[in-house]
């Protein structure tokens, strides 16, 4: 256990935390946009899977991981449009749609992978995005390499946090956006086009979730396999609640989960006697306890999860 306290271990742990937190953060932000407009989307896992495949495929065929990320975003938007249409226009049950996407999108991803790549004895490798260290800042000892020596997508993700905060709290567009999730009828009467805002939310959500998936297969590791997403979409859901629907809170939540996951893995390596399943439960139990002790009554956008019918009076 003594190696826990050495600097190398801590640096590696922090680095790992940042790496593991990124996909969770970006997907949580996606869900944040969606829920702030009143749409609960639990299909993120599925969208990520498709984003991962498309990102990998495009990255592989073009040799350019950035194209992969872009393609992942586009794929995410497409899939989310199915959700959007059925949930916004048809007012179907959001939960079920999310789950249908969770079955549908990974199946499509698996299907395309098999058709395109067939069976191989080792996983096909695609291009890996290179880390882009920020010139001066990355030379700061420990913190420098932990925070400033990453791929651009990581920077993008963390930048999205203040951008989202500014958008939601300080711009008129953002306030309108939030209004749609809180009191859609009042918003409508003020001239805000509720349906359009919800669609915009779905586009942003789909794009970010797609990027999150593509990140996994073009920046984090450079291969695709079924199951690469491993439930990160669901952790994102709890991160949004944990973070009380605020970008800053979501950031903390994502970092916490990344940390718990990174720590749990290292604890496994350090003490191979403890059954790994008990260690693997830690992130989920943490969420539960945090929710139980810190959850607030009736938090969240008030019209979250409720279908919006223009005709209802």
């Amino acid at each position, binding site marked *: 256990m003594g190696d826990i306290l050495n600097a190398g271990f801590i640096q590696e742990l922090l680095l790992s935390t940042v790496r593991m937190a990124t996909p969770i953060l970006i997907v949580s932000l996606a869900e944040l946009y969606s829920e702030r407009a009143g749409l609960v989307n639990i299909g993120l896992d599925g969208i990520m899977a498709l984003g991962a495949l498309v990102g990998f495929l495009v990255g592989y065929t073009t040799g350019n991981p950035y194209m992969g990320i872009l393609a992942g975003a586009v794929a995410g938007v497409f899939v989310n449009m199915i959700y959007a249409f*059925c949930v916004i226009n048809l*007012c179907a049950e959001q939960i079920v749609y999310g789950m249908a996407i969770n079955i549908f999108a990974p199946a499509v991803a698996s299907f395309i992978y098999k058709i395109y790549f067939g069976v191989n004895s080792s996983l096909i490798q695609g291009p890996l995005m290179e880390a882009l260290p920020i010139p001066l800042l990355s030379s700061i000892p420990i913190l420098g390499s932990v925070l400033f020596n990453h791929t651009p997508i990581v920077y993008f993700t963390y930048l999205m946090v203040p951008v989202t905060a500014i958008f939601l709290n300080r711009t008129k567009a953002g306030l309108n956006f939030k209004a749609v999730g809180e009191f859609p009828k009042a918003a409508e009467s003020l001239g805000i086009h509720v349906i359009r805002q919800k669609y915009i939310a779905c586009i942003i959500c789909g794009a970010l979730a797609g990027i999150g998936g593509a990140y996994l297969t073009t920046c984090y590791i450079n291969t695709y396999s079924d199951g690469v997403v491993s439930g990160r979409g669901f952790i994102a859901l709890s991160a949004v609640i944990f973070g009380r629907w605020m970008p800053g809170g979501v950031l903390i939540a994502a970092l916490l989960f990344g940390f718990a996951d990174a720590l749990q893995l290292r604890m496994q390596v350090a003490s191979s006697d403890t059954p790994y399943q008990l260690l693997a439960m830690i992130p989920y139990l943490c969420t539960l306890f945090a929710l139980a002790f810190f*959850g607030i*009554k009736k938090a*969240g956008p008030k019209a979250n999860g409720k279908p919006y019918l223009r005709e209802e009076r």
Partner: protein
Amino acid sequence: MKLKNILIKILIPIISVIFAFIVGAILIASIGGNAEEAFTYLFKGAFGSSANLGKTLVKATPLIFTGLAATFAYRCGVFNLGAEGQFVVGALISIWVSTSVEGVSGVPLIILSLILGALAGGIWGAIPGILKITRGLNEMIVSIMLNYVAVLFMGYLYTGPLREGSVPQTEAVNDALKLGRIYEGSNVHSGFVIAIIVAAIVYYFLFYTSKGFKLRAVGLNDTASMYNGFSVKKYMLMAFIVSGAIAGIGGSVELHGMQYRLMSGFGTGYGFDGVAIALIGQLNPIGTVLVAYLFAVLRTGANTMQVGTGMPTAVIDIIQALVIVFAVAGSALVNLPNVKQLFINITSKKQEKVVQE
């Protein structure tokens, strides 16, 4: 009027299945497969022989349980997404009971095991319930987290304390404790009968008792119910507990009737399917049973289709997901005011015509 409503409610799943099949056929054709052959296998697989019919019923049994669990919860306006965890927890208690309890055996032990399974599921379901009513927490997330915890714990048990020898799985349930077959030569076990009985009980409770009525009232409009003096919180909690208990029995039944032991992958997917089934079945226990059967038909038939034609299994998943997508969209579509108006216009035109003649 009522007949028309029922007809519409039945038509929607049927039409969605047809649409999903059409898309599936296009997909199959696009990779060079023979769509007609594929669907032949599908029907053969689900209906082609009495063994296959039996396979379908066996597949339907756990789906009926999770579907009922979701239906019950939905009727009270709460989302129980934790059916998977409750299912697993029920099975966990059952395997422990079956392999550790001395002194009782045979049918009484099975009954004990099932009851404990229900209790375990109920307790597991109560957790999100309690958190919801005391802290206003979103029950969806709590139940999803608990699913993971339950499955991981099961994994710990079958690789550790309850492990049997060389493989990560528990001991098998003793032969004396396996649920009996309904008729010789088929795989259909009495768990199916139990499922139907539970469905009947739920139906009776929801529609023919005053408690059931109050529960549904809470689900339809909790503010009005509160003003009418119904204890909304109590009913919600009850909904969670009963819903969890139903899923728990489902897990026990699956263990005693089909799987006989816990291993990796036990119970996967039944929870979420249950929610979809509940919705497509229009939150009616009878509808739930029928739709669960439909899902089982799809699964069983699709399995045979995959084996017969060599399609990647992903095609099956896509078709199933499409059925859900279309069916839920269809039900929602039909409930939209615009569409309802459309129906009324069509049918009232008919009446006008008749009157004029």
